[in-house]
């Protein structure tokens, strides 16, 4: 199974990035083999709708789930439409930790946006 995690730098032991829309990097990980690849987030610099651009970006990675600190309402709508499940990091500090917790079902799954939007959607 492939999942994506937001990170501040390329690496499973690097500090996680709590933002989804403006995260610096996306780590795409096969949780069974632990093979991973890193992608820069093209949405990070968007004037508006960064969450949407980020969602579009990860849609092409063929992942079943996304782990981040928070998902704004636009990102939430986009990922939900794309059928990608969303989970929160909680107090995980690295992607490795989050992957371990995810595998045993210890990460919180999200059913609604976790923060207000920056551009007018409440």
């Amino acid at each position, binding site marked *: 199974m492939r999942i994506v995690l937001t990170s501040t730098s390329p690496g499973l032991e690097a500090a996680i990035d709590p933002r989804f829309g403006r995260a610096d990097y996306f780590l795409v990980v096969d949780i069974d083999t632990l093979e991973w690849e890193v992608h820069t987030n093209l949405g990070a610099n968007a004037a508006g709708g960064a969450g949407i651009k980020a969602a579009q970006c990860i849609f092409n990675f063929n992942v079943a789930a996304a782990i981040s600190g928070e998902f704004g309402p636009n990102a939430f709508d986009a990922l939900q439409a794309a059928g990608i499940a969303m989970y929160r990091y909680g107090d995980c500090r690295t992607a490795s930790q989050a992957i371990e917790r995810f595998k045993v079902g210890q990460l919180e799954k999200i059913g609604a946006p976790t923060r*207000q939007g920056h551009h007018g959607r409440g």
Partner: protein
Amino acid sequence: MRQLVILSGKGGTGKTSLAAAFAHLAYAGPSVLQAVLVDADVDAANLDLVLRPNRRETHDFTGGSVAMIDPQLCQGCGNCEQVCRFEAIVLPTHTQPAYAVDAIACDGCAACVYQCPEDAIHMEPQTAGRWYRSESRYGPLFHADLYPAQENSGKLVTLVKQNARLLALDTNSQVVIVDGPPGIGCPVIAAAAGAYLALIVTEPSLAGIHDLGRILQTTTHFHIPALVIINKTDIYLEGTTQIEAVCSELGIEVIGRIPFDPAVTEAMINGEPTTAYRPEAPASQAMTAAWQIVAARVNGTEAAHDDS
């Protein structure tokens, strides 16, 4: 770590003076909280005038892009002018035979780029301002200057706040204090996003009361709990009574009343927060009392919006 945003609706009610006082009180006490400071009024950033910080980092800010027409490639078909909805295309003249873009009017939609049959138009990113990380006496300050006549102030506000947030998380700070802009539109929404608590600074004038209604409806719309503080209470006592009645009806607490006090302006001219400049002044005492309430709320354990 929680975000406190200071808003007003109407401009000139005293947000920045209060934000500066809170920065001082968070540092010096009573009610010490480790704070990171943000001036989110990027159109007209004034907080650094009273905090007088040392600048540590400066970054260019790229806002949106504007369209540019290559006069060599333009064949004068006028399609761009037809499709532009922002009146941003300048018609050719006898001195300038190609079509051109009015950079100030251009919204950056790129409709003309995609619909120019000669591919004569491209989008050019604009440096719209700068943001800074500075160090003040009371803690780190993130602020910015949007160049005059620029757009995307919401994006710049978000950028400044995100950087403050990341630093606050890294340094285990307890609060990010955001000095917000006036109004209720995009920069205010950006400033308020993610706030645990909004403190609305109002004044007892008809205009102040009217705009208080609009900003309170805005914070409610975005599910941000709000507290109100009345500044310059004695200029229209009837107005103060009205504000209290409105807040009571809406279930919003009024946590402070600051009298009109020349010490506030004197402190500003002196480049200091009022509470540092003259702690015994009536305004300082009221601000200090208000801070203690706000600090307790920010530090409290009731779940409103967890942002740790």
